[in-house]
């Protein structure tokens, strides 16, 4: 019996495609479209972050920093310097990728809470810089972002944006699923499972950790750029600590090491603030409660926990395992 969520890659992608295709029938006004688009954009970042955190086991509490870099690169280059949006996006992605590459080696030598601290520090430094360099970024007041147009064609209106984001989400999901089920993907998971075992079979663990770090940073940057154009006006908050925590929450709740879990986590935790938007304090409290409850009762996250529960029910009872005799 194969695990539906990991093996039937095609099944999962098909379901996703169907959902994305049918969803517009239920999106009866611009607000609902907005939520759907934001879910898609968040899901893209979260899939990237999950590759780093869930599959490779490297915690990052500063990912909003990379997202913010992409967003602000697009904003500043298109608004102040009239760059074509696609070029600005590429520039942001390259710059973020280079920064991640530069920092990856020293950062990824660390483990556990020191890694968490380092990524946290990184994210906060980025958000402080964005906040302070007012003449470029507009500082705490934010900056407007011009519309996204490619070769004269502008993406305007919620339906066009929805189409673009849905296609992007499908693409990123497909790429991520391919990556997981490949030698590179297995190497990453092995690093998480037992770094010494991975090294012994020949995995260059440092190189792989660096690659997935840079990849997830670049994905975040691209998502940030696109979000910036969609929202039209950005503030330094989107590179801030709370946003990094939101992203981690989405990974953790949806499911570490689960691409579809990332999408579900993003969906749940994008809708939630919308429901609580007039109750700011409550939003924080509910986020906190969800984080704690998930970690206590379903530490692997929603999708993996449900998947293993269904697997237990469906599989035939096994012969009792031989008692382990510890030496």
């Amino acid at each position, binding site marked *: *019996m*194969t*695990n539906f969520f990991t093996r039937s890659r095609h099944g999962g992608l098909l379901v996703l495609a169907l959902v994305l295709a049918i969803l517009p029938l239920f999106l009866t006004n611009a607000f609902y479209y907005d939520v759907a688009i934001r879910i898609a954009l968040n899901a893209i970042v979260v899939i990237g972050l999950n590759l780093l955190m869930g599959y490779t086991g490297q915690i990052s509490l500063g990912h909003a920093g990379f997202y913010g870099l992409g967003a602000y690169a697009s904003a500043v280059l298109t608004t102040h310097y009239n760059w074509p949006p696609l070029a600005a996006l590429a520039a942001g992605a390259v710059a973020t990728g280079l920064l991640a590459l530069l920092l990856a080696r020293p950062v990824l030598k660390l483990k556990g809470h020191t890694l968490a601290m380092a990524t946290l520090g990184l994210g906060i430094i980025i958000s402080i810089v964005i906040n302070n360099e007012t003449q470029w970024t507009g500082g705490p007041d934010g900056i407007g972002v011009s519309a996204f147009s490619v070769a004269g064609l502008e993406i305007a209106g919620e339906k066009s944006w929805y189409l673009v984001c849905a296609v992007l989400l499908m693409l990123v999901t497909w*790429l*991520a699923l*391919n*990556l997981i*089920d*490949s*030698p*590179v*993907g*297995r*190497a990453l*998971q*092995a690093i*998480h*499972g*037992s770094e*010494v*075992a*991975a*090294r*012994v*079979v*020949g*995995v*260059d*663990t440092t190189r792989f950790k660096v*690659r997935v770090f840079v*990849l997830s940073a670049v994905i975040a940057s691209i998502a940030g750029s696109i979000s910036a154009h969609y929202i039209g006006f950005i503030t330094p908050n989107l590179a801030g600590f709370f946003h990094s925590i939101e992203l981690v929450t989405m990974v953790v709740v949806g499911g570490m*090491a689960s691409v579809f879990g990332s999408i579900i986590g993003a969906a749940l935790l994008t809708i939630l603030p919308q429901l609580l938007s007039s109750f700011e304090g409550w939003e924080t409290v509910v986020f906190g409660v969800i984080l704690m409850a998930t970690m206590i009762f379903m530490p692997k996250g929603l999708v993996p926990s449900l998947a293993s529960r269904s697997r237990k029910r469906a599989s035939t009872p*096994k012969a009792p*395992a*031989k008692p*382990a*005799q*510890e*030496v």
Partner: protein
Amino acid sequence: MLTIKNLSKSFGGVHAVQDVSFTVKEGNIHSVIGPNGAGKTTLFNLITGVYTPTRGEILLNGENVAAMPPDALARRGMSRTFQNLQVCMNMTAIDNVMVGAHLRLNQNLFASMLRLPSVRRADAACRDEAAQLMEFVGVGRHVDDEAGQMSYGALKRLEIARALAAKPKVLLLDEPAAGLNHTETGEIEALIRKVAQSGVTVVLVEHDMKLVMNLSDHILVLDYGKKLAEGTAAEVRANPDVVAAYLGVAA
């Protein structure tokens, strides 16, 4: 195949391994035994790149590989298993074995993301090979399972399958019978013999004397980090120093 020359390792004032030399012939099963604290695991970790020697050489097929990291050794055909199982519990059993073949497969990020036909084909072939290896070591019925669902004895064999997936020239087994009961130990013994017959040179560290005596072509006895004796099973058994230090009166 593998020659150790004057290998020494000190941790500060503790001389864990002192001036040990021996040779492992290709295709043999070579065991390292000794009382607790004799330096067997340290020796193992030195050979497999986990520790850096203080002095001495480790010649693998003529090349000095002392102080090379484990992944460099893997590239030169060395594989190992661990005394305290290092199985990736976050992966399926077959994925664990497939990781063993890592060096033989495409490691390009973009090729993987795009799932190029060459990657797809190589992966399918790798999966088949891994399934066969799992059969070979005797855990074939776990092919569809998560590693976390398997018993301790099965996991020990899974680790061997992973080590074999790399098609190594020399396989180092760190206490393969640790934690196994009588029946399981017999199964491991048969497996190790099968592995050696397939052409892989085997070096093992072990406490189970029966297993060692049954399997080994050559035995190295360590005591207090130094070589105490070496020879065939019969020679070692009869050696009075070995008997005194380790085997006890009724051997």
